[in-house]
């Protein structure tokens, strides 16, 4: 799954991050009609007046924003005498395989941060609680968010996740290398023609300008973006059939694989090599996650610029995902803990403006449009991408199917199969996986 492999990206050294909060300037002053169904304890996170509770929170923020997150939690703990939140951080990859076992043995967290496309899986498997009342208390509604993100938190029409942030793929370019090849370092290409013309110039200067990684990070996510730019989709609307072998998908894949044939990319690019080469001045362009903004900021001499993805296909599109807060179902549910957890989520949402300053795109539109946020370099540059961001679809068990998609691209990019063949084979396998999922989750 995306997040599974996301971890692989070992955002660790690279400054992952992201986690911005749903930033709400006005907070829990309204709604508050606590429903009494299922895990709907408390008054939707407005306040908690019961006995002291200890809450465990798990996240995968291994980068710089992990520290920001912990500071916010400390502040929360100081302000709330009867709630103590303890944070545990795992790499995403470990995270999603540890969580189910931990929950079923009673050692799981009370609050878990999760990627948007994991919510359906964990909701279907009964790991997380409904949060409709929290959304109501926070006065969150679809208009405040990118619609896909908002709907991504729903499963069977019930809300399971409160969005914190959104993290799209961005366009990173090395200004020094562009200058060396006679390109204007302040004008990164924005169209297909500009892009290929720039690559031709770079090639003349002896630089393969755009390294096509065969791995999910970041070649697979680049292909994911271009497939949507060419007008394709991974699955049909109901996520019943895989569609990533459509003509637009094959064309987008061919475009990337041809980069290698034209000498704009070396063959056999290794994991991370595309990004390391960008920083080392061995290539000029790289599509990479917004989380790398923290990393490039560490070295001001590197002269790396950030821009929206260029439009290489017929429309704009960029891969993106979103972190969400969830409340984990415990054996022997403790309503005090659930109430406390809701207060925490509510509180963090109120403080997400501070958090956004640490380098993430807030989930809330009004914060995104505030002057404070727009003053943050690079992060704000990528915010407009959210209008056309292509989020992974939400359906239970989809993670492994999306890995099949990435593996198909891997085979094409490593020239083991033609783009058409690789994608056809991938779709055949993905359809079998989807059928297995339907049997298992009954959807």
């Amino acid at each position, binding site marked *: *799954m995306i997040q*599974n492999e996301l971890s*692989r990206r070992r955002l660790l050294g690279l400054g992952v991050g992201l986690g911005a909060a749903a930033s709400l300037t006005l907070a829990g002053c309204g709604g508050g009609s606590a429903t009494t169904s299922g895990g709907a304890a408390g008054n939707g996170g407005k306040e908690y007046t019961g006995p002291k509770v200890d809450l465990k929170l798990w996240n995968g923020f291994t980068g710089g924003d992990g520290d920001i997150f912990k500071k916010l939690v400390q502040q929360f703990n100081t302000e709330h005498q009867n709630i103590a939140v303890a944070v545990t951080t795992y790499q995403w990859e470990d995270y*999603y*395989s540890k969580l*189910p*076992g931990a*929950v*079923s043995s009673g050692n799981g967290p009370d609050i878990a941060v999760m990627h948007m496309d994991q919510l359906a899986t964990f909701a279907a*498997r*009964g*790991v997380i609680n409904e949060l409709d009342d929290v959304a109501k208390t926070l006065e969150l509604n679809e208009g405040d968010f990118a619609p896909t993100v908002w709907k991504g938190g729903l499963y069977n029409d019930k809300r399971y996740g409160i969005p914190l942030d959104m993290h799209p793929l961005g366009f990173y370019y090395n200004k020094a290398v562009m200058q060396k090849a006679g390109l204007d370092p302040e004008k990164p290409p924005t169209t297909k023609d500009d892009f290929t013309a720039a690559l031709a110039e770079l090639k003349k200067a002896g630089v393969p300008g755009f*390294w096509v990684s*065969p*791995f999910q990070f970041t070649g697979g996510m680049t292909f994911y973006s271009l497939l949507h730019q060419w007008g394709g989709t991974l699955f049909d609307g109901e996520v019943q059939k895989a569609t990533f072998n459509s003509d637009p998908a094959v064309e987008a894949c061919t475009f990337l694989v041809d980069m290698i044939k034209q000498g704009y990319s*070396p*063959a*056999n*690019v*290794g*994991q991370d*090599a595309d990004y*390391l*080469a960008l920083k*080392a001045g*061995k290539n000029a362009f790289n599509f990479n996650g917004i989380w790398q903004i923290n990393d490039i900021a560490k070295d001001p001499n590197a002269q790396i610029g950030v821009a929206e993805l260029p439009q290489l296909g017929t429309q704009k599109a960029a891969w993106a995902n979103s972190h969400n807060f969830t409340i984990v179902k415990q054996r022997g549910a403790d309503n005090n803990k659930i109430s406390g957890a809701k207060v925490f989520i509510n509180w963090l949402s109120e403080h997400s403006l501070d958090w956004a300053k640490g380098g993430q795109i807030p989930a809330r539109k009004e914060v995104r449009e505030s002057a404070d946020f727009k003053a943050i370099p690079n992060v704000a540059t990528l915010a407009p991408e959210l209008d056309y961001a292509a989020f992974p679809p939400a359906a239970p*068990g989809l*993670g*492994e199917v999306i890995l099949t998609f990435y*593996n198909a691209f*891997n*085979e094409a990019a*490593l020239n*083991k*199969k033609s783009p058409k063949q690789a994608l056809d084979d991938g779709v055949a*396998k993905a359809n*079998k*996986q989807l*059928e*297995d999922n339907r049997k*298992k989750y009954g959807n």
Partner: protein
Amino acid sequence: MADVIEVGAAREDASPPAGGKSRRGVTQPGNRATPYLFLAPYLLLFLTFGLLPILFGLWLSVHQWDLQLPNRPFVGLDNYQDLFDSESAIYGDWWSSVRATAIFTVFSVPLLVVIPLGLALLLNRSFPGRTFFRAVYFAPYVLGVAVIGLLWRFLLDANLGLVNRLLGAVGLPADTPWVTDVPWAWVSLVGVTVWWTSGFNAVIYLAGLQDISPELYEAARVDGANAWDRFRNVTLPGLRPVMLFVLTTTILASANVFGQSFLITQGAPGEETRTVVWRIVDEGLRDNDAGRAAAMSIVFALALTVISLVNFRFFRYRED
């Protein structure tokens, strides 16, 4: 097995415990439980962490078992059937992982049996700095797989890695895809594993070598045996039990390869270097199908059991 036992027995004979002889066979009434009491601590561990999980695994393997889903229907042998049914979603992945594991095992085991033996023979001679070299060859083994995996992934990177740069500097091809294409990925995985674990096998061999009585060599020399004869007729037979141990554990370790391909090649190209254990982990923990993962584990364990039995047979036969 017989070999191992005999060696053990021989050692006991060399230094009999005080009053050892009379103890054997003396079973006073009421003491019948004694041997079982001695066995009890291990037996308890074996039952708790060995037998019970195996039985539970068998139970899992005939269900569609998800840690969280409330219903875990009995599916009979479906999970096993899927592994052999070319129409199932898992068939391709499963057999490609079996193939990957077989390739790795076939190429790594001979090297891991022979190279450490050579090392041990060299390190068994007396020369200045011997202890230093013993430590040097053993050193990689103390590193975790995560460390050696990341280390070699960057060293072997086709475009940025040190290995290709050095090859280029001496005029050899500098664009070998060490970690992204076969057969190079196999060369890398086997090579790294040999580098990483040879030291361990060498230490076992070394212990075995030091167990061979110098008198045997002396006698052979008196009989006019040259170095090769002494190696063939004294060293090798003397090492046989050790070799059985090394071969068996190395086959099992190689068949269980996971970390190296997970970190160095990441399964690339496609899923060609994805191994069985990796597949089982993904199936059980990532895709939440503990039943199918258990079925895979059991099929895999049966295969390894057969191979180990053949292995024991072979060594016993040689002895006869």
